[in-house]
């Protein structure tokens, strides 16, 4: 006889870096329903953004997330710049791409490491994080912070990357890619890793679209959706190529991230090579008026900021929709029908970032 049980997964769980609870309704070992319970780290950031003025908000917005912080400030700056009709200097657009793609590499290495840890491959976890350290050192050298870079500002960027540092970045990127070529075959080709990932948490293409999945989760299901194709910043000049997979399982999501590591490294190289000389920023005067929905492609998917200004220094309304929030309905769909032992792997493969989700 089948009995129904409810198992709380989280908020504290070894595989979860951040607190989220999944209430799993079980029939024996099989999940028939999953419900999320969030709110453990809700900080009321949208409210405080209305209290601070719009320049202070750049620093506030950068601290929404501790992993993809640069992209948050980049998106906010692009939103305000479009409200105030500021055109950013070319060199600043290229520098933004360099830092954003470095962020994407470090974020993907982080989540691949965590995924390796979730399916019990600790050696791989440590090797991937060791490589991530190289990227973090590049960021500290160029921007002054390991994760919170603080270089993006309204109208451009604050720091330049001088030629000597550009050579250093290229050298370190080559070194990181050489080390990755040792490690990644173990993640992609290994028999036991495949046993753990292939066919787990399948999300079909039509379901992914209907549930509003974004980022690597959508691209692994075969949806060609990447906002970098809309050519914000300097992506239009860098012939960017999107990575897609069709299987829609955890293995495909891992593959998308692995391939994006290489496309991101390639984008950094191209951006450094084609970067024009020129000023770093233009002064921004006046106060923002009107409303905009600013969008950008983050490591986890598309990030939306709704910004409404009312011609004063304070914003009327600032709203954040992070990619993890959009991926949660897809996660619930993936969990339904899977085994309890697969829940950690599925949960980590959507790359959950709960602190940004709850703001």
């Amino acid at each position, binding site marked *: 006889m089948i009995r129904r049980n409810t198992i709380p997964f989280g908020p504290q769980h070894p595989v979860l870096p951040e607190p989220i609870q999944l209430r799993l309704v079980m029939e024996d070992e099989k999940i028939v329903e999953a419900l999320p319970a969030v709110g453990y780290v809700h900080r009321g950031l949208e409210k405080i953004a209305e209290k*601070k003025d719009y*320049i*202070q*908000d750049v*620093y*506030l917005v950068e*601290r929404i997330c501790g992993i993809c912080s640069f992209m948050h400030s980049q998106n906010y700056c692009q939103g305000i710049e479009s409200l105030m009709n500021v055109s950013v200097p070319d060199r600043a657009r290229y520098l933004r791409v360099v830092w954003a793609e470095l962020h994407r590499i470090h974020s993907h290495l982080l989540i691949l490491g965590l995924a390796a840890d979730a399916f019990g491959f600790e*050696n*791989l976890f440590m*090797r991937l994080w*060791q490589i991530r350290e190289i990227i973090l*050192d590049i960021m*500290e*050298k160029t921007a*002054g*912070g390991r994760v919170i870079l*603080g270089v993006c500002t309204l109208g451009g960027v604050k*720091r330049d990357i001088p030629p000597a540092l550009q050579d250093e970045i290229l050298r370190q990127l080559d070194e990181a890619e050489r080390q990755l070529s*040792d*490690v990644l*075959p*173990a993640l992609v*080709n*290994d028999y036991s890793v495949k046993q753990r990932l292939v066919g787990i948490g399948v999300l079909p293409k039509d379901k992914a679209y209907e549930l509003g999945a974004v980022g690597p989760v959508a691209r692994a299901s075969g949806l060609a959706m990447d906002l970098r194709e809309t050519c914000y910043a300097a992506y239009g000049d860098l012939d960017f190529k999107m990575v897609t997979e069709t299987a829609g399982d955890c293995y495909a999501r891992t593959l998308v991230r692995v391939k994006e590591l290489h496309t991101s490294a390639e984008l950094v190289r191209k951006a450094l090579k084609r970067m024009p000389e020129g000023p770093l920023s233009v002064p921004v005067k006046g106060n923002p008026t009107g409303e905009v929905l600013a969008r950008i492609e983050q490591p986890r998917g598309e990030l939306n900021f709704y910004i409404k200004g009312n011609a004063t220094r304070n914003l009327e309304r600032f709203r954040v929709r992070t990619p993890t929030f959009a991926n949660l309905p897809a996660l619930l769909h993936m969990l339904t029908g899977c085994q309890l032992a697969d829940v950690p792997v599925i949960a980590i493969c959507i790359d959950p970032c709960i602190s940004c989700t709850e703001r």
Partner: protein
Amino acid sequence: MINLIQSIFSKLSSRPDTRRYPFKKREPMEGSRGHIDIEIDKCIFCGACQKRCPSNALTVSRDPKSWSLNPYACIVCGYCVEVCPKKCIVMNAGHFTPPA
């Protein structure tokens, strides 16, 4: 898989990749945002930094002349360094160490 086994054996014989932290410290990189310091002789106590600080970590008063930073509220963003008219607030590398 072969690569990984090779690397395991090479790691067995080589030195650890980590540092023995409290005894051996890494020098902070040049230009890294570590902590805020002030050259108090140059300060004119205008309060521009206090008004701009996003985390309200600064307290400046004209009479009596005082400038104080709450290091636990400071987010080391560097906004005060930019706006200071006398350029007397400086960003130094190396993190803040609380007094014992």
